């Protein structure tokens, strides 16, 4: 009984953390000034948030096979950074102007 309570509380904590990190990534996609910065927010914070939510799903649902959760986590962990890297690569190829603290640079 106590074990079930601990697992449920951990699942709730992971779900809240995942929602928080996803919101941070959404604010970054919405508010950052540059395509490079936006893909950076997408590639790091959003991966962390979706992995937290998938782990919470694996903890909260008893009849869920663990290899399916591991497969989904591995798939997210591969696909989102690769997509983020592709954005940065084609922005680099197109010579988009970059934002820095001292202002916009055209490279």
């Amino acid at each position, binding site marked *: 009984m106590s074990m*079930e*309570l601990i697992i*449920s*509380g951990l*699942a*709730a904590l992971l*779900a*809240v953390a*995942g*929602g*928080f990190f*996803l*919101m941070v*990534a*959404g*604010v970054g*996609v*919405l508010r950052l000034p540059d*395509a490079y910065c*936006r*893909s950076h927010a*997408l590639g790091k914070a*959003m991966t962390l*948030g*979706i992995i937290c*939510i*998938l782990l*919470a*799903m694996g903890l*909260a*649902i008893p*009849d*869920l*096979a663990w290899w*399916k*959760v591991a*497969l*989904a986590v591995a*798939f*997210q962990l591969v*696909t*989102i950074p*690769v*997509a983020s890297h*592709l*954005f940065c690569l*084609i*922005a*680099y*190829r*197109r*010579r*988009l102007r970059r934002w820095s603290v001292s202002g916009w640079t055209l490279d």
Partner: protein
Amino acid sequence: MKTLLAAVYPLDWALIFLVGLAGAWRIVRGPTVLDRLLGFDALTVAVCALIAVHSIRTRTADYMELIIVVTGLGFFTTVAFFYYLIQTTPNSRSSSLDEPDRPAPGARKGDGA
């Protein structure tokens, strides 16, 4: 203890819905086509997270394959669009990334072949 997970559900739903709205706003208002593609990717991840939160709420394990399939759909859409973009973009850099068009910062003058 089910009340704690039930209390988490609307909070997570609101946060992830904000992520989806941010992606949709980036699709509408992106200055370049890259920003629109990036907003689509954010929207796909938000859809995956909403499916996961919904299946936590209803305690079913039936949607796990749906999460994997939606992730694959978003990724392959992004890669296909990227392939189209990189074929239609006039390449303003050197054609091969292995041959930089300027010397490395640490290279001395006599180093080249």
